[in-house]
């Protein structure tokens, strides 16, 4: 009977060993595109969609005849919402699978985790999510919004249109909200808002019981001055937060909440009836009526096979990033990272929301900013937008240490954060 157990165990071991050798075999006649998004764990909820949209874009490109006469091949891995695993998987994609470019990451920490890998191996990452800025790596293109493309326009809007005088900055306790709030605090103070009219509150990830904090917001809002909440609450915590807001009867007409991490995808999990009028600031809304967007949405629905699926801002970011990369590769005539990088600068792709996105030499995009109000069907309807595009800042002007720094990867700077040019 022991023999049986042993045979089983050995069989299991050898099965795994065979797995390794077959995994290593690879074909060389395709261009490999790595997709580094969590498909399990806490971040799967947001990132899986991005994996799907990448598969759609790659599929689409292949139907158009691929790139440089070769087919594109998507290499999907699951970093499982585990940050060190992101680094491991990034290395696997580049070293083992030989990907020419990687599209991936959602959280800042996952990007921070893979950054040294991309820099060491001189590979290329497209990062599609709005983030805190304060970074410009030679090997990363940031296609999401920087704080000056989201937070500042939103606050300006509230000040102007809603005459907001008192501010609650509520966020999840991690670097993106901290940075955004730091920038906003200094911006508001510069605009003459006294310190007692700013309330800053941080909550842990996945915070589920918002009763006390919503009550605090109500209390803060009853000081006779128009009050607004700037929410950098992240991910899962938003649903219970908005449910509590709705149930405690905080109406957008009285205390509007403007969010930077809540898009159509997050709202899909909430009955938005009581939330009508609360705001979101992004570079993209699904409801924006342009031919490009209509085409994108129909393509997405056809690809995913579900008419109810929504589109959101990071999906547009991947769309723009992927198009730019394709154009840059075509221009450079190679997938060589250094050549493609040079070709990326000044690359133009029409936004889904109208206008044209441009890749700047600080690796951030120029994009329009739109502010929208939540509707009862879970869509966000534009109430305000910038006239033209806004240039993404790698370094905020409202943080003294970073205001000095410049990010510019072309001659004579060639630097992600310097006070003077390298050459």
């Amino acid at each position, binding site marked *: 009977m022991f023999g049986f157990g042993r045979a089983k165990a050995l069989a299991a071991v050898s099965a795994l060993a065979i797995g390794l050798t077959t995994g290593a075999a690879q074909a060389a006649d395709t261009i490999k595109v790595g997709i580094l998004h969590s498909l*399990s764990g806490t971040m799967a909820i947001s990132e899986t969609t991005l994996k799907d949209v990448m598969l759609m874009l790659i599929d689409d490109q292949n139907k158009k005849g691929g790139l440089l006469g070769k087919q594109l091949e998507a290499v999907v891995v699951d970093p499982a919402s585990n940050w060190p695993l992101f680094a491991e998987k990034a290395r696997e994609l580049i070293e083992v699978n030989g990907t020419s470019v990687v599209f991936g990451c959602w959280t800042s920490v996952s990007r921070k985790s893979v950054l040294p890998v991309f820099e060491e191996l001189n590979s290329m990452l497209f990062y599609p999510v709005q983030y805190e800025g304060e970074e410009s790596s030679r090997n990363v293109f940031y296609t999401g919004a920087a704080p000056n493309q989201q937070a500042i326009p939103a606050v300006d809007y509230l000040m102007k249109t809603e005459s907001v005088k008192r501010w609650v900055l509520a966020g999840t306790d991690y670097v993106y909200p901290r940075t955004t709030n730091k920038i906003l605090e200094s911006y508001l103070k510069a605009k003459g808002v006294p310190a007692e009219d700013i309330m800053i509150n941080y909550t842990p990830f996945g915070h589920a019981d918002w*009763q006390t904090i919503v009550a605090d917001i109500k209390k803060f809002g009853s000081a006779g001055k128009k009050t607004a909440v700037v929410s950098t609450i992240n991910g899962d915590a938003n649903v219970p937060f908005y449910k509590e807001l709705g149930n405690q009867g905080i109406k957008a007409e009285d205390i509007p909440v403007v969010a930077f991490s809540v898009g159509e995808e997050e709202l899909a999990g909430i009955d938005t009836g009581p939330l009508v009028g609360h705001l979101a600031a992004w570079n993209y809304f699904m409801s924006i009526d342009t031919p490009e967007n209509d085409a994108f949405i129909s393509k997405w629905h056809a690809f995913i096979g579900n008419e109810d699926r929504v589109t959101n801002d990071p999906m547009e970011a991947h769309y723009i990033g992927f198009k730019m990369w394709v154009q840059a590769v075509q221009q450079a005539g190679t997938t060589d990272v250094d050549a493609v990088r040079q070709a990326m600068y000044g690359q133009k792709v029409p936004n889904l929301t109208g206008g044209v996105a441009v890749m700047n030499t600080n690796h951030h995009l120029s994009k329009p900013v739109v502010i929208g109000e939540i509707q009862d069907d879970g869509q966000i309807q534009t109430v305000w937008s910038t006239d033209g595009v806004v240039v993404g800042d790698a370094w905020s002007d409202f943080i003294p240490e970073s205001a000095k720094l410049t990010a510019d990867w072309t001659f004579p700077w060639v630097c992600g954060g310097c006070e003077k040019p390298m050459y």
Partner: protein
Amino acid sequence: MIARLLALMIALCCGLPALAADPDDLPGLIEQLQTRDYAAMEQTVNTIAATGDPRAVAPLQALADGDLYYRKSDDKVFIARKADSGTDLLDPLTGEFVENVGRRDARKIGINNGMRRALRGALGSLTLLSPDPKVRAAAAQSLFKSPDPGAIEALGQAIAAEKDEAIRTAMEEAQAASILLSDSDDATKIVAIQSLADRGGRDALSLLKGLPDSATEPVKAAALEGVKSIEAALALWSTAQNIYYGISLGSVLLMAAIGLAITFGVMGVINMAHGEMVMLGAYTTYVVQEIIRNNAPGMFEFSLAIAVPLAFLVSGSIGVLIERTVIRYLYGRALETLLATWGVSLIIQQLVRTIFGPTNKEVGNPDFMSGAVQLGEMTLTYNRIWIIVFALVVLAMLMLVLKRTPLGLQMRAVTQNRRMAGAMGIRTDRVDALTFGLGSGIAGMAGVALSQIDNVSPNLGQSYIIDSFMVVVFGGVCNLWGTLVGAFSLGIANKFLEPYAGAVLGKILVLVAIILFIQKRPRGLFALKGRAVES
């Protein structure tokens, strides 16, 4: 209001075309609502409100609800109604059916928050004299929230005509709020302030604190008095509010933990898949609501009542399945059940992710679960109230099952002395399966409740599993009273620490307190003493 006056002045100076309209031409005014210029739109709304024409209520209400559309072909304004295919367009004033158009042929007239406020005021003043007392009460509420000196006169008329005591008071308060912002004399304002101070509450406080700087000294002094008295009342209520929050958090913990008190507490299975049972319950609610939405939208109010037994069955039968296929081989090896159920939880999570997709699913709150009731200065949200009730009812029913039914008796017999119970003819394996199924089923019912306040995603269960274990261990296993007291004391402790220490530190402190408490009472709050537990 100042902004609105300012807009009016600017509009007057610049002679915007909107003003050129004849105030008596209601249909013409309605057509002017079709604009992207919110300042102009607001102006039009005010003009419409000033007509006092009750026919204007329907289009304005439609605008506020997002049901006012314009036809793309000729920009004409209609009230839209969803039809089986496309959209029905109705005449904005008469409500008569005009035609059915394709979904993309008519577009919604978008509004913003400023517009919503303006509409609230306009609708308020238009409906003050409505024959329906509910509408009148709502109108008074709206005007209180959007005070407007222009409405003082209308309010005066309404007050004079109002028979209902409560509505009249509300109207008087709304009038007082408007007076504060008007240029009335000081004496009138001070009376208004007193009326607001008597009303109390955060809204009144906000109004008094927001007194314009132009107010005279006596008015300011009166307002300060009012603020003081309201704040004193609020401070008293805040303790009560905190206790309520604590109880409400406790009931969530209780809900999440009761099932575990059976599978872990009674059976000794370290059930790491407990959270997934909760999650399955929440998904059952989602599926029930989806079916209702697609087939019988009228039944939506009953969706939860339908979901509760179904969730019990779904999670319960999956529980039985897990017990039959995995756990029954592991009795007496508590720590190994942890490993196996951990594996099971991974599988269930991924299964749900594969079937339903990784994104959040929308589970709606039926009307009785939405909104809040105001008890003094406490806001009690309905969903929390029902969860408290639900948790207690489930606990009570479970106790009845354990104490009064043959299954409960057999269950206790098997947990106390398996061999003896078997010898007496109890089919222990069946009892085991049913017990595990019962615990899992209750977890599924908890999922229905939690779907009302939290995300419905594959990760739902993970966020409750640790708290559930803490509650059961803190209360003492094998004891449902312990679970009850444990859940509520942890909930209340958490909520009392939160204002001082913040949400994170508060939680850390509670965890540390549990660790220290277990040192004092290694077997929890309500542990059995003596020799029986040693074995």
